[in-house]
């Protein structure tokens, strides 16, 4: 692998509930290499393996076969909480990325220590608080004046914005965005997407963003991959992506997957 490769997936395979009637071949051989600074959007129908791929990278479950290299390290067997040192994550469910019963600054302070030893020093310092206040005010959501409020009191959009800030607070080697705007109303989703774009650009992050929205997938990032039945069936670079329309994509999808997908078409165009 080249030195600039941030993420290398080699033949990742995962079957859930093997040997039972609910057996699900979720990943059937995923190969993917991300260079440093790549911002890759991921599309595909329901059950294509998009989220499973992200969770495999994050270490939510052990994979059956394959190798995962992050920043040149083999993390295939590293437990989830250890891999967290290299990863920033934002989930589809706005409730997932934050601790509702803790306040905004406590959540940020937890994220500010991602991958670090946690000892018996006080959980948040005055200096940190100032940094968080600045970063929050840049979100323009008024959260900087509510740093003592419980995160559970925030709206879904506010929580996703906060989770994004938390995920990028300590420069991650890879940012994993799992349909992080899907649960938001269109206007809020757009705001969170703009914030995503800005944070990735400002920090020069490498990112994988799963989305159901083809327009977003085409508009954002410098590369796009399409998944189907647990594999990557299409991989477009920046210039290929630039000439694509949603209609082209649908056609490509039908060609590559080898069948007409009336149901998935609905999901993909939404």
């Amino acid at each position, binding site marked *: 692998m080249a030195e600039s490769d941030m993420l290398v997936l080699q033949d990742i395979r995962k079957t859930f509930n093997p040997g039972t009637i609910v057996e699900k071949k979720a990943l059937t051989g995923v190969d993917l290499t991300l260079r440093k600074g790549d911002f890759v959007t991921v599309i595909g129908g329901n059950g294509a393996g998009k989220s499973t791929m992200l969770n495999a990278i*994050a270490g939510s479950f052990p994979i059956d076969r394959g190798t995962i290299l992050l920043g040149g390290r083999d993390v295939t067997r590293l*437990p*989830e*909480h*250890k891999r*967290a*040192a290299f*990863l920033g*994550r934002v*989930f589809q469910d706005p*409730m*997932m*990325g*934050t*601790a*509702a*019963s*803790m306040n905004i600054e*406590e959540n940020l*302070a*937890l*994220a500010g*220590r*991602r*991958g*670090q030893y*946690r*000892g*018996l*020093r*006080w*959980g*948040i310092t005055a200096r940190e608080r100032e940094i968080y206040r600045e970063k929050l005010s840049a979100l323009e959501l008024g959260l900087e004046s509510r740093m003592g409020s419980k995160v559970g009191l925030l709206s879904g959009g506010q929580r996703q914005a906060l989770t994004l800030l*938390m995920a990028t607070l300590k420069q991650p080697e890879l940012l994993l965005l799992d349909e992080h705007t899907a649960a938001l109303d269109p206007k809020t989703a757009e705001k969170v997407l703009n914030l995503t774009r800005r944070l990735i650009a400002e920090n020069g992050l490498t990112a994988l963003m799963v989305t159901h929205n083809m327009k977003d997938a085409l508009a954002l990032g410098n590369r796009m991959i399409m998944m189907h039945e647990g594999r990557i069936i299409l991989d477009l670079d920046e210039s290929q992506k630039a000439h694509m329309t949603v209609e082209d994509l649908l056609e490509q999808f039908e060609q590559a997957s080898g069948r007409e997908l009336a149901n998935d078409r609905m999901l993909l165009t939404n």
Partner: protein
Amino acid sequence: MNIAQLLNQLPGAVAQGLIWGVMAIGVYITFRILDIADLTVDGSIATGGAVAAILITNGVHPWLATLIAFAVGMTAGAVTGVLHTGMGIPAILSGILTQLALYSVNLRIQGIGTDLGSRANVPMSINKYKNMLVSLRNVGHLSLDNPIWLMLLISLILIGVMYWFFGTEYGCGLRAVGANPQMARAQGINTNTGKVIGLMISNGLVAFSGALMAQYQGFSDVSMGRGAIVIGLAAVIIGEVIFGKLFRNFALKLLAVSLGAIIYYLVIQVVLWLGLNTDDLKLLTALVVALFLAMPYWKSRISARKQKGGVSVG
């Protein structure tokens, strides 16, 4: 019914409440912070009593005996933690298993030095072991011997230490483990270790309380922990219901737990004075706790119904 008789009982209720308050703070750590219903406590409170009693009756200083009880309680918590996180047994069942095992262990601890090697009860009279930390003998006195003073001091120090600990980097991480384990792992926190540590601290406090309880009543008994979890929960819930709106700060929330335990024992004294048979006490406690646990659920259902049936505004 003689009101003087009731008034006479009240200092004892306060002292007992303060001792159980320590135990209830342990329950608060698992039940509210870690979001685990830990049934180990029924066993570990008696373990604390057993360890303290056997050490004190063998000449160990009561302070040292009580601290050793704390350490042994932590071990019990670690066992439950490993059963849960290392062997994949559901938390509630892990606690039940440890609790059951502790019954035998406690009989054995209390039997150390006896011919049978097992004993259900260890008496330790204040007459013989004069330096015991607390005793119900002194609860009516206005002197410094009164157990209420020492228990107040211990409770306040404990609340202070817990406030500090859960404010540290590690403590904040533990709170995240209970609040959202998925998020905690994404922030690099080992949720399994966190649960084990939390269970250890909790059961350490419970055993510490058991050690004080045994000294207070002048004996240790293997069955002294029966239903302890329910009393602990009662204290937590009474504290929340009465002081929840008022106390937002974490230290005050812990204080509310302690006050909840005192209120529980005061109420018990009143119902006993009103003529309730002591044998029916556990039934009453279970009913009260069930009612209080149901309240948030009922409240949410009522407000949901109101929203559905109500006139929409705007």
